[in-house]
């Protein structure tokens, strides 16, 4: 094999990717997915998390207390989140409907140590963001009241759970698992999947546009052309991974083990690219090849994720610096498989060249 030829093809394909701006679309796509997954986690949690919302305005919500007197009334007032009005039920609910109140609590005259539980009725507006926030704040008060009642009825509880005194607040760790346990593996493997889909298009296009004959009538052989395309698709994967990691670091998210992460990603992505090259060479037609490939990718992804110590898990562990040396073993095994696949692909390209193109 003449590596100069491979290099020429690689350069040509990279030039085409650049000219068509597909790479920009690809990066935009990844950014979009990252934004949306963070919306799903951060935005959603922020919406329920009163602290996140009340950062810029410490608002007090008006609630009505109706029914019989109980310690709950005082607890609501002391929480600092509510302005509590003592009202009768009908007026309160009507005012709630007009949004002059954020919630109405009805308390029955059940005794604290009664046999029956205390059943509080909470009137609230359905499908409303403010109600969700208010309910969440009310929940904290209710949970405290539940603790009170549980203490009063303590002699009736028989189990004796292990008591652990958790600190009241755990600062600034809300999204650690999301960032390291989901976003980083997602962003790092996305370029691999994109490149694998890209090579199918590159190869089938040559077949379907009948440009393949022109190409191999040049000094470049068929297998050099395939390897040129493979390396074009492969090269952009670690580059994108580096960009994502750099972005993370710039945003104050420390990523450990960058070099091993890049090695893992490179091996895994090249494996995926080789796999889709096989598919493309087999079908030589985009619809079938992409269909089979995308179905297979879903199967493989789900399958791999359900195995312990899979590459994605290792990348999570590497990025937080919590991995032992066993990841080198996984890397070695993957590299072995990769080498076998490369040999097999080389054989297969010669086979295709002989049977299909003569």
């Amino acid at each position: 094999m003449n590596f100069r030829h491979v290099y020429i093809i690689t350069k040509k394909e990279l030039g085409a990717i650049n000219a068509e701006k597909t790479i920009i679309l690809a990066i935009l796509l990844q950014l979009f997915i990252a934004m949306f997954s963070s919306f799903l986690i951060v935005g959603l949690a922020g919406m329920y998390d009163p602290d996140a919302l009340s950062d810029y305005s410490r608002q007090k919500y008006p609630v009505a207390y109706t029914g019989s007197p109980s310690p709950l009334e005082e607890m609501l007032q002391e929480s600092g989140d509510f302005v509590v009005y003592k009202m009768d039920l009908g007026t309160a609910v009507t005012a709630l409907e007009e949004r002059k109140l954020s919630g109405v609590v009805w308390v029955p005259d059940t005794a604290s140590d009664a046999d029956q539980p205390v059943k509080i009725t909470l009137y609230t507006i359905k499908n409303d963001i403010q109600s969700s926030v208010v309910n969440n704040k009310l929940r904290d008060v209710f949970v405290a009241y539940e603790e009170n009642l549980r203490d009063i009825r303590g002699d009736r509880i028989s189990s004796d759970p292990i008591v652990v005194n958790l600190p009241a607040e755990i600062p600034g760790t809300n999204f650690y698992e999301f960032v390291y346990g989901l976003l980083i593996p997602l962003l790092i493997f996305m370029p691999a999947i994109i490149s694998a889909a890209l090579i199918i298009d590159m190869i089938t296009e040559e077949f379907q546009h009948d440009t393949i004959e022109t190409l191999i009538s040049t000094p470049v052989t068929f297998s050099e052309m395939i390897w040129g395309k493979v390396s074009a698709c492969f090269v952009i994967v670690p580059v994108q991974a580096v960009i994502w990691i750099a972005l993370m670091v710039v945003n104050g998210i420390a990523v450990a083990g960058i070099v091993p992460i890049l090695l893992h990603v490179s091996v895994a992505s090249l494996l995926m690219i080789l796999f889709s090259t096989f598919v493309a060479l087999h079908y030589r037609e985009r619809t079938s090849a992409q269909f089979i490939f995308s179905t297979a990718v879903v199967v493989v992804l789900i399958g791999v994720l359900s195995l312990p110590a899979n590459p994605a898990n290792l990348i999570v562990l590497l990025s937080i610096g919590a991995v032992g040396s066993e990841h080198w073993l996984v890397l070695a095994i993957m590299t072995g498989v990769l080498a076998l696949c490369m040999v097999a692909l080389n054989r297969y390209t010669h086979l295709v060249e002989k049977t299909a193109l003569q």
Partner: protein
Amino acid sequence: MLSALRQILTISKWEVRRSATTMPREVIPVAAALFILLILVTGFTQESGIHLQDRMYTAGVDSADTGAIILGDPRFTVYLGTAGETDLTISPPNIRAADTDRGGAALKAFQTDYTHYLTAQYNREDDLFAAYPLWIDLQYVKSELDFTATEAGTGVSSAPDPFRNPTPDRPVKAVPEPAKEIGYTREELRAGLVGSEGEDRTVSRYTDVIAGEGALGDFKTPSQLTPPLPFDVIVLVFVFIFPLYFTSQFYMMSVMNERIERRGEILLSSPLRPSAIVLGKMLPYLVVMIAVTTILSLTTGKTLIVLAVIFPVILFFLAAALLIGMAARSFKELSFISIFFSTVATSYLFFPSIFANIHVISLISPLTLIIYAVEGTAFTLADYFYSTFLFWVTAGILFAICIANFNEERLFTLHPLRDKVREYIASAISEKHPFASLFGITLFSIPFVLMAQLMLLVLLFNIPMPFSLVVLTFAAAFIEEWAKSIGIYAIAVERPAFLTWRNVILASLAVMAGFLLGEKLLLFATLAQISESLFGAALFTSLQVIWMPLSLHFAGAFITISLIKIFGKRVYPIALVIASLVHGVYNLYFITGGF
């Protein structure tokens, strides 16, 4: 009419025969094998769980009993003995976390596990009402507020007065006092509590503030008092969208194939109408999609509702597939545009539906209606209209554009995507009535503008509140200005001489009229619900008094066009930015009620 129908059917038959003969024989069996494999793998995954975050944390415990609290959590590697360097050191009642981010996260993870442990203990208590002495009965009331106040920009409520009870404006209605009895037996409640224990923790792990489905509907213990995330149902809904995406890919590819080596020339030179070709080629895929949806919906039991909801989505997917297939220059471009499109479309469909039980914004996605149908929540015809309206309209417009452009010139030339889009738009401008065309283009761009703006609304939830409002305002203004100027830009590129000052003013007027009419129409048709919220105010402030938005829309278009006239078409992006700044500042001024 009959012959048109016959033409469509003929093309459909060709399409079916072609795909049956050109597809390699072994694709179907391989696909079937992969599908079976997929089911097997999914089954295996459900058994063994997703091992993505395994062994993230280490914990040292003083005894095996303590270790049992977190032994079931794969995120922890548990060591017996508290001497080692671990993220967490637990020797009850004390717990110590390493002073790192990871230590804090481990503590958070432990907190969730500990709550689960306690819950499991209490759930098995003999005297359940001693362990759970407080139950909350949630009663929902319907908001009766007239929202015109919010629309006028006065929606932000003032701080409540602690010394005076609020008094309702309407007559007080009688509300029956709730019963103090609980209405369920101990064992019924226990069954509900134990049932909610087994919920999938891989989801709640990310954000422990989202509780699972409550024990018994609206009857909850205090710790269950957070709106449920209808996760199972959302997954189910995803199941409906995925096959649509797959099938529309085949249609896209079939259109693309006609363009390779000018293969479709024969078809075009036949007496068949372009509309017959486009629709005929589409029909088999439409049938497949409907069939798949029907089969899938059998699992939910609400086949008719699901079909009614999905059908406009199917049309939208097919229309987009047609456009992409007609515009892409190469397979690579086809892949990326289609992946990009489907990601955006899926998120538009998927993410609002997460809020299904929380906020009305969820209704912009038809999928929310499916969730409602599955959950048994009733929805009205108005809700259906509201959430599917944009899909109907945009699909219709896209089909119209594609059919008008289904000719040799558009199909067999390879221009960059941006030029292609411009050409498509230019094709809609008549030489004789350019201003009427501009009016029409602007009018029809409104559904797309709205879709993009609603998308922004969802995206910008991420950012803290005052900032998100500002970004939303300017981004929304940018999209509007873009839509308003795109027709004129297309003319300016093809016929630079058209831009005389007289025509610039007339064009701005045409655009202004089209945009305002469209916005008003849409508002009356669908937007009552969104415009109720403060975010809605950010998007639609320009709707209050008629002359102000008129002059605003005129000014925006005029700025863009005159900048293009003076400095040439290269300044188009900058002109857009300037126009949207003006537009955005105006909107901000009105939302905040004057700075």
